[in-house]
């Protein structure tokens, strides 16, 4: 019989997770642990924020969501709320199972339910998708963010918000191809799934993946998750889902949250999961060409104007001009018949 209660003591040595966790099925430590997700592991940072020169090479992680195993129980939502200490409001029923009705700054993940009459089989299907941050390899939020270091990407693929740096502009919300980040209207900071970066940093998987009763959500290295997905897809094909496949959209460089879909040919069946997401051209242009070109134009114009002001003579008013003016004024005043004189 093992000891039921353990008391962590301050004297316990600080251990550190050396690499990314390979599973969410483990019990978290209560001893102090050094985090391996910090500045040293940052590979991208918004708005030219600081990145590590030689980032810690962590194994790329991924969360795999197997929709064919998902029972829509919302344990992921519950675990997410509890781990992240959020407080979603108690709303009302509007004829849907989605509660809250959308992602919020207090609800980082949401089960979305779609009723689908499959025209090929004649069967009714209830497609339930866990929505949340996809942790894009090429994150649109990070690209759109104007605050240096407010959004970072770690070498394991996690895209995380550094809230101290967030200025609350909401550009990331516009930049996200999946419509994920949500503004906290009180703090004016944007929140989204962190992939439980605080857990991953000490070798634990995300709270949702650990909680998921049917292990429809699994967590591990991206390679392992891709292999697992292939196994699941094979099983699904054997059950008549000819178009089963993996959703790891390349338009955003692949994602660190992936789906196994029964109908991978039609992602939009799953409550409008984008068929082929990419960072919006508008955002790309805004953050691409507009910034340097605009800045260059302004800089050049300013410099040019300054140079011209400095080195050209300018358009000066001459003494003759003043004289001409006096003449003109006098002439004009005098030329008017019935003038009573100068009213100056």
């Amino acid at each position: 019989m093992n000891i039921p209660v353990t008391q962590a003591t301050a004297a316990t040595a600080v251990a550190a997770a050396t690499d990314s966790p390979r599973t969410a099925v483990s019990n978290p430590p209560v001893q102090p642990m050094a985090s391996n997700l910090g500045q040293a592991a940052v590979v991208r940072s918004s708005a030219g924020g600081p990145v590590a020169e030689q980032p810690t090479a962590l194994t790329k992680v991924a969360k795999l969501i197997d929709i064919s195993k998902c029972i829509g129980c919302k344990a992921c939502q519950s675990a997410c709320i509890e781990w992240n200490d959020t407080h979603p409001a108690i709303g009302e029923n509007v004829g849907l199972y989605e509660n809250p009705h959308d992602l919020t700054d207090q609800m980082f993940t949401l089960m979305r339910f779609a009723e689908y009459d499959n025209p090929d089989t004649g069967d009714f299907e209830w497609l339930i998708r866990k929505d949340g941050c996809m942790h894009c390899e090429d994150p649109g939020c990070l690209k759109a963010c104007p605050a240096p270091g407010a959004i970072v990407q770690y070498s394991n693929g996690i895209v995380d918000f550094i809230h101290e740096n967030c200025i609350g502009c909401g550009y990331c919300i516009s930049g996200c191809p999946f419509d994920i980040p949500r503004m906290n209207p009180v703090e004016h900071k944007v929140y989204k799934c962190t992939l439980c970066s605080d857990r991953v940093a000490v070798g634990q998987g995300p709270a949702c993946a650990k909680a998921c009763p049917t292990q429809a959500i699994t967590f591990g290295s991206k390679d392992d998750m891709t292999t697992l997905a292939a196994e699941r897809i094979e099983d699904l094909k054997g059950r008549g889902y000819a178009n089963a496949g993996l959703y790891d959209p390349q338009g955003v460089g692949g994602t660190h949250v992936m789906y196994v879909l029964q109908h991978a040919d039609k992602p939009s069946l799953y409550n409008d999961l984008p068929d082929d997401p990419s960072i919006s051209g508008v955002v790309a242009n805004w953050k691409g060409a507009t910034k340097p070109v605009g800045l260059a134009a302004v800089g050049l114009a300013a410099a040019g104007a300054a140079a011209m002001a400095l080195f050209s003579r300018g358009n000066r008013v001459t003494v003759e001009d003043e004289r001409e003016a006096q003449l003109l004024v006098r002439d004009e005043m005098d030329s008017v018949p019935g003038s009573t004189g100068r009213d100056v």
Partner: protein
Amino acid sequence: MNIDLSRRGFLKLAGAGVAATSLGALGFGEAEAAELAHVRDFKLVATTETRNTCPYCSVACGIIIYAKPGDDGKRRVTHIEGDADHPVNRGTLCPKGAALKDFVNAENRLTQPMIRKPGATAFEPITWEDALDRIARALKDDRDANFLQTNEAGVPVNRWTTTGFLAASATTNETAYLTYKVVRSMGIVGFDNQARV
């Protein structure tokens, strides 16, 4: 005069712009504002872990309760998570189990005995002593008045039907067994539990 002044003004302005630009380029802003990347502090550090069982359904998932002393010095639950060593749930929890912390710490937890007097519109506090004495007195009186020792045929039946007891569904075996002993010893037959529904 005007002209020169103007020109100086313009130069100043331009210079300020360039300076600001350079400062920005040099990382002036970041050094000032950007917090270095970090994750949230791991919140389970220095808590106590206790193995327990989810009290909801009969899958009986293994859970670990994380607790630490609250302001009053009493140990309070700060987090609950599935026990990955448990052979049935393997660390997983359903939406109820995953939110157990807010069950334990619910606002509607009862914290003191209350009594509602006949016809009253509200509960009022009562001490444990008074509450238990009232209950014991009522039981004794009712039992003495209504306990049936023999039936019409004179067969000893020793049953008490005017008091009933509805037992729980999530108490431990030990509580249930003690409850059984107490209820049966008094001859109460109106005894049932949640299994009925």
